[in-house]
């Protein structure tokens, strides 16, 4: 493929890195990553993957930009309010790096469309804001054997892990079922520190880049937990669960499930 002079200059600071080089940059330019949810997590993920020269970036989000998004969703401007997020993200990111092809999907993911959307991507990044989508994404990635980079937050705390089906545990090995509607405070009630979303999103972006470049040790089989108030990172072990309902020895889930939405179903639904 070969890099142009401009590309060598643009990516020089990462091409210099051991384990990256021109070959690594070519891997990034050839990589296809799908970001699910262009909110507090998806924004920093998209910004950094675009900066790094990931060649194809799918962005799936059915929402429009709202004023209350802007404290953490850093790829949007005030003038984007009311626009479709995936479309606004594309315009902004294209200005950052014309090497990255941005493919917007203005759809809500369901059992009916997710397999078709994820099939062309190498890595899926989950930045969604609700349990039904998170379990749908996990199950779809297990069934399609796609690597999934999970991240989530609540107020001042966040979690991240990498799910590589067959090799390591999936999200259901960790938490086999989503909480029932009403068991956890809704997105709108919970609140979040904008910068916390950035920290977790950037852990996801970092893991995605490592996976594409095949450098370092991916966060497989363990979950990292960040606590912003204590400014602490902890890891816990996540073993593969042989009784996991989707990736265990005798799976009980054989097709995708559309769980009931309980994080608001109206137009006022917002990312937490």
């Amino acid at each position: 493929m070969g890099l142009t002079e401009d590309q060598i200059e643009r990516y020089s600071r990462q091409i210099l890195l051991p384990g990256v080089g021109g070959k690594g940059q070519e891997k990034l330019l050839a990589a296809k990553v799908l970001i699910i949810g262009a909110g507090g997590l998806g924004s920093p993920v998209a910004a950094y993957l675009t900066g790094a020269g990931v060649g194809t970036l799918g962005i799936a989000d059915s929402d429009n930009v709202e004023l209350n998004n802007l404290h953490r969703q850093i790829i949007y401007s005030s003038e984007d309010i009311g626009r479709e997020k995936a479309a606004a993200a594309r315009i902004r990111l294209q200005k950052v790096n014309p090497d990255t092809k941005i493919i917007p999907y203005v759809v809500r993911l369901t059992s009916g469309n997710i397999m078709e959307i994820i099939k062309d991507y190498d890595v899926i990044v989950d930045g969604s804001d609700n349990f039904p989508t998170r379990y749908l994404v996990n199950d779809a990635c297990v069934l399609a054997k796609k690597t999934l980079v999970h991240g989530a937050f609540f107020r001042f705390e966040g979690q991240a892990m990498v799910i590589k089906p067959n090799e390591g545990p999936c999200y259901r090995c960790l938490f086999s079922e989503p909480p029932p509607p009403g068991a956890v405070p809704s997105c709108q009630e919970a609140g979040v520190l904008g910068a916390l979303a950035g920290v977790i999103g950037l852990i996801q972006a970092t893991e995605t880049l490592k996976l594409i470049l095949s450098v370092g040790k991916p966060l497989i089989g363990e979950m990292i937990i960040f606590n912003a108030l204590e400014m602490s990172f902890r890891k816990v072990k996540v073993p593969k669960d042989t009784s996991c309902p989707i990736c265990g020895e005798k799976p009980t889930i054989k097709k995708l499930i559309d769980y009931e939405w309980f994080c608001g179903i109206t137009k006022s639904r917002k990312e937490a």
Partner: protein
Amino acid sequence: MSIKVRIPQPLQKITNGRELVDVHAADIKGMIGDLENKFPGIKDRICDQSGKIRRFINIYVNEEDIRFLQSGETGLKDGDEVSIIPAIAGG
């Protein structure tokens, strides 16, 4: 046995905002019992009606998930740190 329990943010309403709570218990069941004595209502959030830990919550002794140890009978010793970690979904 004096054990430190790390309470996740979604449950800190019940612990009056406290993240680290000291309990006296020899195993996980005892820990949940002592937590309930100190903070009535917290057991219901962690366990279902049959007393089993809910499927969207895990309990770790240090960094090990008790489901892969002895579940509720997992023994505790002085200085252990127990973490209660729920699934969260914000994005």
